């Protein structure tokens, strides 16, 4: 250009030159303006460049952070994966457990079923046992009755014999044509008295032999003891056994079945009777005392006593010290059972050299209960 401008100056005059200078000045000015704008732009660019650099630095930081986060995430992902796998295992296990649980549940249902059957069976057995126990009491009673009958047969023979004689006398009087009517009537009345005596003995035996179901009725202890003694007294009397009875001043009302309680004392008296059989002094003492809760009845004999160590065994079924055929071994176990059923206790004390003393405690009936009259 400059070369162009020089050429133009040569061809043109001063006016041209001025114009050229002016043009050149304008151009220069424009170029200067452009340069200044360029400088501005350069400055701006510089600024931008600086900003960019700092942004780049920040970016690098962010990237580093990002990288860190990414790594952390990767780790977490791995951990999660592990957890997932573990969970899967657990789920599998739990499924197996579920299966096992189900099997157990089924087994359990079976067992429950069995248990129910067993319970029913146990209940049935219990009932059976109760029935058997009642049968045992009855069997024991019949055994007692058997023993009593031998004694009672003799007792019955006496009134029977007397009846025969009195009636025979009346027959003789009539046959001989006795005019004394009153004598005949007197013989017949005496015969009737003996019939009543025999009837009493038999009716008592019959009452005693009846099956007596377990019950807890209020019962007069005094009546029970008197009934038991009346069945036994002839046997005791004939064996020269001295019986002392102290019923105490009161008439305690206890709970139980009168026939079963009667059997308790018949059994104890039978034992006492047999215990003193070979003793030189034959005594049986019966005493009743009453406290606030129970009536205590002691039956003491003058026999040889119970050998040490047997005090507990004597209440076992079929345990007997008597000769074979002399006792069933059931008496005391039945006695124990009856007393136990009514909430009472029986024990025995037998100090060496003294006889045996049985102590029976029977709970008193509540005071408002009334005794049921005995038929």
């Amino acid at each position, binding site marked *: 250009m400059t070369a162009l401008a020089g050429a133009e100056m040569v061809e043109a005059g001063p006016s041209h030159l001025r114009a050229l200078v002016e043009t050149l000045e304008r151009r220069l000015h424009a170029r200067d303006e452009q340069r200044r704008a360029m400088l501005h732009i350069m400055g701006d660019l510089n600024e931008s460049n600086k900003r960019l650099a700092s942004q780049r630095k920040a970016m690098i930081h962010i990237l580093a952070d990002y990288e860190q986060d990414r790594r952390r995430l990767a780790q977490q992902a791995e951990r999660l994966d592990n957890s997932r796998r573990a969970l899967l295992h657990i789920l599998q296990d739990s499924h197996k457990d579920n299966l096992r649980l189900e099997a157990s549940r089924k087994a359990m249902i079976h067992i429950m079923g069995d248990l129910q059957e067993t319970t029913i069976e146990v209940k049935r057995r219990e009932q059976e046992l109760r029935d058997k126990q009642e049968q045992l009491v009855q069997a024991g009673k019949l055994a007692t009755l058997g023993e009593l009958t031998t004694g009672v*047969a*003799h007792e019955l*023979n*006496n*009134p*029977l*014999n*007397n009846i*025969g*004689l*009195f009636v*025979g*006398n009346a027959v*003789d*009087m009539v046959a*001989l044509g006795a005019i004394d009517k009153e004598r005949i009537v007197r*013989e017949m009345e*005496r015969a009737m*008295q*003996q019939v009543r005596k025999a009837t009493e003995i038999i009716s008592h035996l019959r009452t005693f032999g009846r099956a007596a179901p377990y019950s807890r009725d209020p019962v007069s202890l005094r009546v029970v003891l008197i009934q038991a003694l009346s069945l036994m007294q002839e046997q005791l*009397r*004939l064996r*020269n056994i001295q019986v002392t009875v102290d019923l105490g001043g009161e008439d305690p009302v206890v709970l139980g079945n009168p026939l079963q309680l009667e059997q308790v004392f018949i059994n104890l008296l039978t034992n006492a009777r047999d215990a003193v059989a070979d003793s030189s002094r034959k005594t049986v003492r019966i005493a009743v005392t009453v406290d606030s809760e129970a009536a205590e009845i002691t039956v003491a004999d003058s026999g040889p006593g119970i050998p040490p160590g047997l005090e507990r065994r004597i209440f076992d079924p079929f345990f007997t010290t008597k000769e074979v055929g002399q006792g069933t071994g059931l008496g005391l176990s039945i006695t124990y059972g009856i007393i136990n059923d009514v909430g009472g206790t029986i024990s025995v004390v037998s100090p060496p050299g003294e006889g045996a003393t049985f102590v029976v405690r029977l709970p008193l009936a509540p005071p408002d209960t009334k005794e049921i009259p005995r038929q």
Partner: protein
Amino acid sequence: MTSLSVLIVDDDQALLEALPEAMRLRMGGVTVETADSAAAALDRIAERDYDAIVTDIRMPGMDGLKLLDEIRTRKPDIPTLIITGHGDNDLVVHALRGGARDFIQKPIDRDYFVAALYRAIREHVAARQIKERHEAMESWADELERVVEKLERDLQAQPGRSES
């Protein structure tokens, strides 16, 4: 025979009323006494002789067998009959060995009882008669012997009869 006397021993008061009445009706003129225990019976026996004793075997205190023993030692001649219950066979054998004359089972058959009692008394009376006669004979024999001895002594004492 003069009036017979019999002692009945039993602890049953009714029997002590019934049996003596039966005996009075069946055995005219018999005297019946009663005792309600063996001890009472022994007191009676000590007081007088009976022609027979009838005792129950089962009694409290001293029983019929012990009473029988006592009678055997105190008055061995008196026939004793034992009343036994039905089926007391062992006791019957015991009693018969112990010297009882007979036994009567309860319930008592009156015909049997009267017959047994009469027989026992008759035997007793007969035995007593035999014994009495035996004793009489013995005393006669003694007497006879004494007479013979006396005669012999008399004969020896006669001077004319002595050998010269």
